[in-house]
């Protein structure tokens, strides 16, 4: 019994350490500059200063940044889901000679540091006239992503061969098998990939840093970093902006946990 109390106590301590930065971010974002200077780390703000959020939104082209981010996220989610599902199907469920080699190449590219490919990719994107365009970030996702291909391939492999054989006997082509059989059966896995890609693009900082230089095209992640240099001393606004940027990701994280499980349970 004492052992259990010991580990529970330890668990609470650990959780406090991990959660504290987030708690003080939210509470700090709701404090007036005066309170923040006087007592930065009390958990409950004296009177929630929601105006910090209004002010943070007002001091940058927030809606412009947000719509840029959403365009990028939408494009990348479509690109990744379509391309990775196709490639994963080709690697997992089409019996052809090159697939083993190709799969090995997929895994190897996951281990390559970006340092080597960054400069040539930049040159390529510039030569294609995509510099300073959303396509610089979206287009590559239509060529697949090693990790998501890996994930989907593993999932596709769990579909029993007898289903595909039945489909073939019913006259389905490879495309038919893919579209009418494998894709409908893999909705949870595809949703996972779409979700991961959404969060990845939402958070992406180095892509926009490299490829976008028109402030009209900045997404939120990059806008937030610029915000630091111009409002670095206004901690209450910085925290509000950071919290605002984080909120959707946390909401998706919590919503997805349940939605996904329920989505499967109701099938």
């Amino acid at each position, binding site marked *: 019994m004492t052992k259990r109390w010991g580990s529970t106590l330890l668990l609470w301590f*650990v959780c406090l350490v991990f959660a504290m930065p987030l708690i003080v971010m939210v509470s*700090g974002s709701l404090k007036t500059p005066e309170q923040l200077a006087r007592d930065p780390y009390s958990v409950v703000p004296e009177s929630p200063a929601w105006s910090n959020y209004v002010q943070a939104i007002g001091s940058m082209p927030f809606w412009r940044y947000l719509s840029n981010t959403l365009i990028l996220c939408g494009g990348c989610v479509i690109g990744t889901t379509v391309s990775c599902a196709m490639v994963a199907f080709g690697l997992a469920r089409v019996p052809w000679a090159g697939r083993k080699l190709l799969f090995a190449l997929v895994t190897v590219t996951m281990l390559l540091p970006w340092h*080597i490919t960054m*400069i040539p*990719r930049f040159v*390529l994107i510039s030569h294609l006239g995509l510099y300073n365009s959303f396509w610089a970030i979206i287009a590559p996702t239509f060529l697949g992503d090693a990790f998501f291909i890996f994930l989907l391939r593993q999932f596709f492999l769990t579909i029993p061969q007898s289903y595909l054989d039945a489909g073939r006997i019913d006259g389905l082509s490879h495309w038919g098998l893919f579209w009418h059989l494998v894709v409908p059966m893999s909705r949870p896995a595809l949703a996972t990939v779409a979700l991961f890609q959404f969060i990845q693009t939402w958070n992406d900082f180095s892509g926009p840093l490299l490829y976008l230089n028109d402030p009209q095209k900045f997404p939120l992640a990059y806008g937030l970093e610029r915000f630091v240099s111009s409002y670095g001393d206004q901690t209450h606004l910085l925290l509000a*902006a*950071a919290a605002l940027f984080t909120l959707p990701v946390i909401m998706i994280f919590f919503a997805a946990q349940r939605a996904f499980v329920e989505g499967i349970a109701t099938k």
Partner: protein
Amino acid sequence: MKDELELELPLGLKTRDQVISIRETIPGGAISSKAIHDPASHTNVQATTLPNPIENSSLKSSGSDHRSDTVAGWLFCSPWIVGFLLLFAWPFVASLYWSFCRFDLVNPPQWVGLANYYRIGAEVGTGKGYGLALWNTLYYSLLSVPLSVVMGVGLAVLLSAKVPGQKFYRTIVFLPSVIPVVAASVLWLWLLDPESGMINYALSWVGIPAQNWLVQARSVAEPETMSVIGTGKLLGSKDAIVLMSLWSVGNFVVIYLAAISNIPASLHEAAQLDGAGVMRRLIHVTIPMLSPVIFFNLVMGLIRSVQTFASIYVLSEGTGEPGGSLSLISIHLFLSAFADLQMGYASAMAWILFVILLVVTALLFRTSRHWVHYRVAG
């Protein structure tokens, strides 16, 4: 050949564990085991009407089928084949070629032989430029990767204890890993403030003097620290980014948790019957059984730590300052390429880093024979 075989195992572990971690532990909670093992629960195809499962081979016996398979295979994989050629194969060759050139993006690359490599060699000698960046990267990786393994395993063991609210605890520990890097960095910029930061405030509770964190170039495990040990200002900028990286250790914890849940209970029971206590079971059962995953996370953690960019960029406001102490290779390379337009020098840097990574990974694989225990299949 043997190396290749071993290479497959940890890689295989990745996906399996990632998938397991997605469906069994917290993030996403995405794929239920039902969906994997019982696809009949959501499909219209009546597989049961087939009298016997038809042999796989019977369907691809004729030549035309074989050809159509090959065509379909190429077509389905074509996005990635194009992607591989454009985004990996060509860049690989191009950056190797440019590493022997002077190249400023505007004018065509101009062959300069080994000049970039000589320059890097000289910088390693003087501890400036690439030499400094190499040291900074080494410092960061050598500290953050082992600490993330120790913390990751420790937390996973703690979080696998069957106590009420287990799911809640796991969620809290994982949560920092989903915070966008830029937001987390903005937050830590504030937490690490030497005067009003919460970290120093928390340290003062346990009697540790305030640290300078991001404004101090000298970090605790650097030789110069010995001479100023009396001042108490030991922790510097690189220690700060190590600390911040440990905040998102949840990524690794999830993988360890999945692996722990795969350890057969019989092993623990047997050890318990032999009179082994909690600690002995941890050391003689849990950790050896986790060793393939620990090894995998060591390799991935190393590769990942070397690639850390966005957080350090934000924390040093895009400069690698103070005193070049946050000029890790990724930052130094980015600034050399896109601020100084020295693409040749930057490409040479990238290749040297790549070779170092290859060697270190190969060495890790070498040593793994002595401490990684792979279960015999079946």
